[in-house]
């Protein structure tokens, strides 16, 4: 007598509540992450207490605001792109490019804040459009192309920081003048407003219909008049604008100068944005919540860095969470059935 486990698909109306399953996945993911912390110098105890401190004390949450700002800016745009079936990972490069352009205008040319932020967004748009063009007209895989561009942007940054813009020491530039900075809360609010704007555009305009249909059934979309090229280009450009703007905001509100980066770590928020987008099920407004969660997780892991826990632990934890949550939500579509076999 053999026992077999089968996954039987449930009808759309009988499925489990994805939110509940997702929360369960989150809980399991956190437990696994804490166990993983056992391999780090902080140990299980250290990891657990760091997490509890961050989640347990709302007063701490404001410290995660900078991270939220950056992650949310990239996540929303990525979510839109993923809905269209455009798997780009270029938000990181677009963010750094936004920082570079904003610094140039604000720190070296002396332009105003609005101009600097606008230019940052534009830099993102151009990079996003480049990836889209490579994909649409040259059929170059967008995941790889966008990643390669990320690396190129970081190379450019390092050159600028180590060369013409260096403030001695090759790793940082001079800080921005105080009247070219913003408070973190303001920056976060700008991001919040922009993301909600994009959500509104998705929900209430043709953009949503176009993006969803192109991502799910390209043939149907095209037959009824949705332009494939136009839609992908739009999604890529909007995502680029958001990420670029996020980079500019991060510069003026948090970092206020440019520092050199390595390709492995880069700035990181653009990559976290990928995870935040998927965690939110690619629902644009929900990326605000998932970015907040990932921002808190990142805050917890930065506090661990004092115990010599590597920076990439943060990303690993976030990835674990995503895997468990996404798996749990997918599981809600099925019913687990035990089958007895008499052979």
């Amino acid at each position, binding site marked *: 007598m053999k026992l077999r486990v089968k996954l*039987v*698909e*449930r*009808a*759309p*109306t*009988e499925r489990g509540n994805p939110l509940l399953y997702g929360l369960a996945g989150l809980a399991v993911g956190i437990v696994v992450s804490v166990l993983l912390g056992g391999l780090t110098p902080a140990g299980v105890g250290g990891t657990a207490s760091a997490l509890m401190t961050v989640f347990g004390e709302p007063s701490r949450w404001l410290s995660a605001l900078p991270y939220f700002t950056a992650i949310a800016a990239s996540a929303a745009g990525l979510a839109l792109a993923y809905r269209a079936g455009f798997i780009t990972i270029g938000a990181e490069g677009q963010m750094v490019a936004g920082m570079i352009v904003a610094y140039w205008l604000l720190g070296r040319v002396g332009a105003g804040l609005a101009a600097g932020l606008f230019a940052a967004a534009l830099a993102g748009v151009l990079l996003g459009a480049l990836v889209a063009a490579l994909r649409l007209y040259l059929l170059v895989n967008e995941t790889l192309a966008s990643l390669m561009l990320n690396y190129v942007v970081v190379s450019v940054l390092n050159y600028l920081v180590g060369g013409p813009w260096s403030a001695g020491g090759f790793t940082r530039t001079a800080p921005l003048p105080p009247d070219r900075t913003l408070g973190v809360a303001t920056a976060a609010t700008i991001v919040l407003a922009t993301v909600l704007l994009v959500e509104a555009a998705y929900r*209430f*305009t*043709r*953009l*949503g*219909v*176009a993006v*969803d*249909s192109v991502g*799910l*059934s390209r*043939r*149907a*979309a*095209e*037959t*009824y*008049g*949705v*332009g494939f090229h136009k839609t992908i280009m739009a999604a890529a450009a909007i995502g680029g604008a958001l990420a670029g703007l996020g980079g500019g905001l991060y510069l003026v509100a948090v970092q206020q100068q440019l520092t050199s980066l390595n390709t492995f770590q880069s700035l990181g928020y653009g990559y976290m944005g990928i995870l935040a987008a998927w965690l939110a099920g690619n629902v644009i407004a929900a990326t605000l919540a998932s970015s907040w969660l990932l921002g808190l997780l990142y805050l917890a892991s930065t506090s661990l860095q004092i115990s010599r826990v590597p920076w990439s632990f943060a990303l690993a934890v976030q990835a674990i969470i995503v895997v468990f949550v996404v798996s749990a939500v997918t599981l809600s579509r099925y019913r687990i059935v035990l089958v007895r*076999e008499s*052979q």
Partner: protein
Amino acid sequence: MTKVYPGGVVANDCVSLAIYSGEVLGLLGENGAGKTTFVSILAGVLEPDSGVIRVKGRPVRFRLPRDALRNGIALVPQNPMLVDAFTVAENVMLAARLAGLRIGLGEARERVRELSERYGLLVDPDARVWGLSMGERQRAEIVKALAVDASVLLLDEPTAHLSPPEAEALLRLSRRLASEGRSVVLITHRLREVLGVADRIAVMRSGRLVGVVEASEASREKLLEMMFGERLAKQPLSEPRRSRAAAGGVVLEVKGLWVLGDHGEWSVKGVDLSIRAGEVVGIAGVAGNGQRELLEALVGIRRVARGTIRFAGIDVTGKGPGARGRLGMAVVPEQRLGWALVPSKDLVFNVALGFYSSPRGPYRGVVVDWGGARRIAEKIVETMKVKTPGLDAPVEAMSGGNMQRFIVGREVLKKPRLLLAMNPTSGLDYAAAKAVDKILVDVASAGAAVLVISEDLEELLNVADRILVMNKGRIVYEAERPFDVEKIAAAMVEEVEGT
């Protein structure tokens, strides 16, 4: 055997059937009766919820198609399932190896040649499948089944894509295979085929086995009664189109159209076509003669290499589907899921998509009027009597027939100038098919130009004012009512010369 799908659709309800060696068993029933489900279970493609299969008296359990193949049961599916990129011989070798036979590529080639000669199933073992016509692919599927020594052959709607002489040849082949001691199960919804060739006929209706009759006792009326119940036994199968209203001006004019197919070959070769307002024009032909590519070119998703398309007086040859939609074009594509509809989205969304370019769409500029889209969806459901769990349920939750009602209803509500439909009644049960055909006729009566491309000649005979026949990418025959069916059928299969 019982099989219930998620959502409670009982596809097979306690079906019990015996199949004997050396016989041709006809499995008859209209679309949606559960025949394909039953046969898929036998072939190991689906697992039943309850029930037992016994091969030569021994109970067996099939978890994978391979298990069924090893027991000598082979399914020849409705749509050939071969690996396009491989050659016929490679497909056969793969299937044989998976069924447990140790043969290499060379041996596979030999088997194909030998079987091909023995049974008159002309197929080239070294031909790549993507280059084969539907008929050739069907033959290749049968050769594949024979190559793995199948003793039970399940032929699912084998004549669906075949020309009349090809269909005849297939039926004769079934008899021959049966006379060799094999079992042949012929699944079909066409009475004629089954009456001519089967030893016994099993009839299914709504998931149940209604009964099994010996060929000697079977008559058309009796079978119809078993298939449909009392109600329709005496009625003719369809109502021919009444005389049409006076035709209006030319709405669609196609001149010298040349279109390339997916593999760099010419699919449409110099087609001329014109349709007037109020007219229903039918294009008949065996599948794979360029119909799909023609439709795609008319819709605007396939490039036109040579020639022009004029719609509503405007040259739209270089314009995309959006422009054509704005001018009043509506499309009922060949495939429901993935081409006409986005499967995982609900009815309201699919209305919004369908009406994306229509002047009557629920849009105010860039802004979507979701309330308006919902109202349109409600109207469609009401007028077409679409059965759906709800407007917010994903469209894939509906049955094929209801999906098609929804699609046709949606296109018609656009009050189009031109309606293009391809195989609009495929896979539909009798009632749904009649409803759809009636709509097509009504739309034309209301003043639209209608083009119906169909593999089902009978459908065209009922609805069309003019029938054109497409063969190897060209229009080889054109006629108005009254139709000479023999000439049309002949035109469908004639060998056409030239590139």
